[in-house]
C-alpha cells in the first residue's frame, strides 16, 4: 500500500444549483519517498486533488487514505494534517509572525509540542531549507524564493511525511524557482520526504520519479517523464506544452532526422552531434 491511496474518488463543486466537476473517479497510488509532479491546465483538478489529500476537502464518492488513514475519519483529521503539509502559491499569504523563527514555531506550538522540542525542530527546519542565518530576521524583506523556503520550513517543523507544493513556484523569478526546486529535491533525497509538486512549468517535471497529467478531473497519462512526454498528442490534448528540447527533437524527427526522445537541452545537443 502506498503512502497515499485514492480509490474511485470524485468531488464536485456546487454553487447556485450548478455542479462543476473537481475530480472524477480518480484512483491513484503514490509510494513513500517518491517525487511526483502533477501537471494540468487551470481548472483540471490539480488543486482539488491537493486539498483532498489533507482532508481540506472530503471526497463526494470514494476514499482517500493517507498512511492507511481514511480522510473521512473526523477524529484523526489533525493527524492527517500534520502528515500532509501544503505550501501555496503566494509567498506573502503564508506568514503568520513577524520574526522568522516565531513563524516556524507557530505550527508545532499549535500541536502542543514542548518548548525544547520546538527549538530543536526550528533549528533543523531552517537548516533543511538553508535559511538558518535569517532566523531572527523578518520575512517581509526576503525574496519570493526565500519566503517560499520559509513556508516549507514552517511545514517541516510539524514533521510531515508528505510535502505538497501547490504551484509554489508560480509567482517566483527563475532564481527563486530554482531555490525552491532544489530544496524540494534535497528533502526528497536526504529526508526521504514524499513530495507532490503541482506546477505549470514542464521543466520542473523532467526530474520527477513520476508525472501525473490531469485533464478535466481525470488522469490523462501517468508514468515516468520520458513516458509522459513521449505522448505529445495527450500532452497537447491536456492543454500543456512539451519541454523545448522535446519539441525541437520532435520537429527534427518530422524532418527525417533520427533523433530520439529527449527531455533536456544537453540531451538534445548530444543527440544532434551524434548525427554528424
Amino acid at each position, binding site marked *: 500500500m502506498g503512502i497515499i491511496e485514492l480509490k474511485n474518488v470524485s468531488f464536485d463543486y456546487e454553487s447556485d444549483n450548478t455542479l462543476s466537476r473537481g475530480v472524477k473517479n480518480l484512483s491513484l497510488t503514490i509510494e513513500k519517498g517518491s517525487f511526483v509532479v502533477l501537471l494540468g491546465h487551470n481548472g483540471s483538478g490539480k488543486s482539488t486533488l491537493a486539498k483532498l489529500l489533507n482532508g481540506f476537502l472530503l471526497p463526494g464518492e470514494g476514499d482517500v487514505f493517507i498512511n492507511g488513514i481514511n480522510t473521512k475519519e473526523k477524529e484523526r483529521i489533525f493527524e492527517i494534517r500534520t502528515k500532509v503539509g501544503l505550501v501555496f502559491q503566494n509567498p506573502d499569504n503564508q506568514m503568520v509572525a513577524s520574526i522568522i523563527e516565531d513563524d516556524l514555531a507557530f505550527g508545532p506550538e499549535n500541536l502542543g509540542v514542548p518548548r525544547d522540542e520546538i527549538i530543536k525542530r526550528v533549528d533543523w527546519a531552517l537548516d533543511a531549507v538553508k535559511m538558518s542565518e535569517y532566523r531572527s530576521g523578518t520575512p517581509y524583506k526576503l525574496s519570493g524564493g526565500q519566503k517560499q523556503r520559509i513556508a516549507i520550513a514552517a511545514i517541516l517543523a510539524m514533521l510531515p511525511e508528505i510535502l505538497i507544493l501547490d504551484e509554489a513556484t508560480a509567482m517566483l523569478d527563475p532564481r527563486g524557482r530554482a531555490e525552491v526546486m532544489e530544496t524540494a529535491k534535497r528533502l526528497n533525497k536526504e529526508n526521504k520526504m514524499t513530495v507532490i509538486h503541482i506546477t505549470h512549468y514542464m521543466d520542473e517535471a523532467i526530474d520527477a520519479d513520476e508525472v501525473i497529467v490531469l485533464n478535466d478531473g481525470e488522469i490523462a497519462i501517468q508514468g515516468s517523464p520520458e513516458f509522459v512526454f513521449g505522448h505529445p498528442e495527450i500532452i497537447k490534448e491536456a492543454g500543456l*506544452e512539451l519541454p523545448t528540447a522535446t519539441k525541437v527533437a520532435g520537429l527534427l524527427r518530422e524532418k527525417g532526422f533520427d533523433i530520439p526522445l529527449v527531455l533536456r537541452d544537453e540531451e538534445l545537443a548530444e543527440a544532434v552531434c551524434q548525427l554528424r
Partner: protein
Amino acid sequence: MSVEIKNLSYTYSVGSPFQKDALHGISVTINEGEMVGIIGSTGSGKSTLVQHINGLIKLTSGSIKVYDIDLTAKKPDLKRLRSMVGMLFQYPEYQLFEETVLKDVAFGPMNFGATKEEALAAAEEAIRLVGLDFDEVKDKSPFELSGGEKRRAAIAGVIASKPKILVLDEPTAGLDPIGKREILNLILSLKKAFVKTVIMISHNMDEIAEFCGRVLVLSEGRLIADCTPAELFEKEYSLEGTGLTLPHTVNIKRLLGQKGLSLKGDTLSAPALADAIAEALRRRV
C-alpha cells in the same frame, strides 16, 4: 516619443533604518509603437521603475515625460497621465471589487470623469475586446468568473479608459501554457486597436524573446542592457548575476556551438531552431 526618462534615481524610506536604493540613474526613451519587455530578478527595481511612469511613485530625482506631461512640473496632471497610461498589476484578479463585472470595468472611466452612459458604453466595448461574452458576464459577480476570465475582466477595467500606453506587471504569471498564450495574443490585439505602446515586465525569457522587439534588463536598480532580445542572448554575459536564465532555445544553440555546430539566423522559437539545426546538419553532410 511616448515615454522619456532621464537620470531617474529613487530611494525608498529615506532617513529610516530601511533606506534602500531602488533605482540608479536610469535613462531610457520609449517610442510610440514599441513593445518593450523589462526583465530583472525580484528586487531589481522593475516595479519601482514602471510605477514612476504613471505617477504612483512621486519623482524625487531625474525627469520623466509621458507625451506632453512633464512629471517634474509642480503639479503634473496626474489624472490625465493615468488615463493615458493603463497599469495592470501582478495578479490583477485580486483587485476586482464591484458587485458586477460591468460596474467593475466601468469604474475606471467613471473615475476619469466620464458620464455614466459613456462609462457603461466604454465598459461594454472593453469587455467584448478582451474576449468575454458580454451578455453572459455583465451582471455576474466578478468573483464567479474562472481564473482566466477574472484576469480578462481586470484587463478590461484597465483598457476601458482607452490608454495609449499599457504597462503590464507580469501579465501571464500563474497561468497555464494555454492561458499564457491567450493573454499574450490579447495584448497583441489591443496593440492593433488603440493601445500604442506596451511595456511588459516578465520573468519569462521565452515570452520576451517571442513578443518584444526590445528588452530592458535591470539589475540592482541599474539599467544594464537595452537591446533586442536576440542581441541580449548573443551577449549572454550581461545576464550573469541577474538571476535570470536563458530561454531554452538559446541555451540549446549555445550548447551546440560549444560542440562545434554553429547555427545561423533566427533561432528563438522552437520551429526556427529546428529549421536551423536541420540546415546546419545538411550543410555538414
